[in-house]
């Protein structure tokens, strides 16, 4: 453990947190591979540091969403049932998983995420279509409303296809526990694309969910000694600073350019992870 190591870890986290915040994500997907390849850390330790950082960014940004009153707590709690169960599943698998297996799964996840983002960019932007509550959502009163300051009106929305969304967010939880990432991207698309929840509500609700999910995984990682103090401290500090700067800059930069950069970064890191996982390089 040297000062250079601490500073390098801090810088990697700062960059990932910054880039993640620009896209409304936690940045764990970039941070874990960078910690593995640049600092040569075992993937278990990199994931342990990342999962604690995910908790930090979620809690730090929660107050912003809570003040705006867009977080749908009922929907968040309902889906948190799925994500925390998933996190326990994933974290249970991580203790027995080999370095090579984790790298390969991580790499495949990165390639998939990069493909999904590329596809989203190419497809024409559909506006949000309001849908009524399905029968589960009706019983659990999952639909909600919020005041949209940009449009100056109250937005009412229902939650459709709540069971498919439940299953998808369970998988997001597994991924979070297994790889030490937040899984916010999956949560958001499950709520927005599957259940037709407006994006603003989906982002805020996902922020709540990843905090609870990551805390579940983090407790397991801590107990199993995958949270190394000297790696995790600079990573948490760096991510917090990076995401704070990123959130500010996000309002002023064009999303398309960042998204393109992000897709390429995910692709490169994903391929590198897989080649390293299967022992090619």
């Amino acid at each position, binding site marked *: *453990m040297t*000062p250079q190591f*601490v500073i390098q870890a801090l810088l990697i986290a700062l960059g990932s947190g910054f880039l993640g915040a620009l896209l409304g994500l936690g940045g764990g997907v970039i941070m874990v591979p960078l910690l593995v390849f640049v600092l040569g850390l075992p993937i278990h330790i990199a994931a342990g540091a990342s999962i*604690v950082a995910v*908790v*930090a960014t*979620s*809690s*730090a940004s*929660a*107050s912003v969403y*809570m*003040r705006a009153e867009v977080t749908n*707590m*009922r929907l968040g*709690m*309902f889906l*948190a*049932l799925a994500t*925390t*169960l998933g*996190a*326990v599943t994933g*974290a*249970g698998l991580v*203790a027995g998983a080999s370095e090579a297996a984790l790298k390969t799964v991580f790499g495949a996840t990165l390639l998939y995420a990069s493909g999904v983002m590329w596809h989203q960019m190419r497809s024409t932007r559909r506006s949000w279509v309001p849908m009524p509550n399905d029968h589960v959502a009706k019983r*659990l009163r999952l639909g909600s409303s919020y005041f949209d300051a940009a449009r100056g009106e109250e937005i009412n929305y229902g939650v459709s296809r709540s069971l498919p969304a439940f299953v998808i967010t369970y998988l997001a939880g597994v991924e979070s526990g297994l790889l030490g990432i937040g899984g916010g991207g999956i949560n958001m698309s499950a709520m927005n694309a599957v259940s037709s929840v407006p994006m603003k509500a989906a982002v805020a609700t996902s922020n*709540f969910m990843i*905090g*609870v999910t*990551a*805390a*579940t*995984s*983090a*407790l*397991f990682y*801590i*107990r*199993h*000694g995958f*949270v*190394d*103090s*000297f790696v*995790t*401290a*600079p990573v*948490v*500090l760096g991510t*917090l600073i990076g995401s704070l700067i990123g959130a500010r800059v996000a309002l002023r930069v064009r999303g398309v350019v960042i998204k393109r950069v992000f897709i390429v970064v995910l692709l490169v890191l994903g391929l590198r992870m897989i080649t390293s996982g299967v022992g090619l390089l």
Partner: protein
Amino acid sequence: MSLRRMELFVSRLLRLGVLVCGVTMALGLGLLWWSGDTSSPFGVLSVEWVLWGDPFLQPSHVLFLGFLILVATPVMRVVASVTTYVSEGDWVYAAITGTVLTILVAGMFLG
């Protein structure tokens, strides 16, 4: 307590948690610089070490306490929700949030 007041209270609690964690981490890294002790425990941790450290106040243990405070913040948020739903007599959601809390804590004792 109303839902709205509870949310504001929790939002303050979350920020406080992050702040305390940040301060603890700065302290721990400072202690590391000063003492040069970089020993870090590996393997399954005992509850005693997590609570008291051995020796107490070694840098890795101080940093560790910071992480625990941080990880406790979302847990507090769920606890607050359980309390609110119970006080409102909303038993369905009291059960849902109670289950989430159980899974959250149970994860620590798995494996």
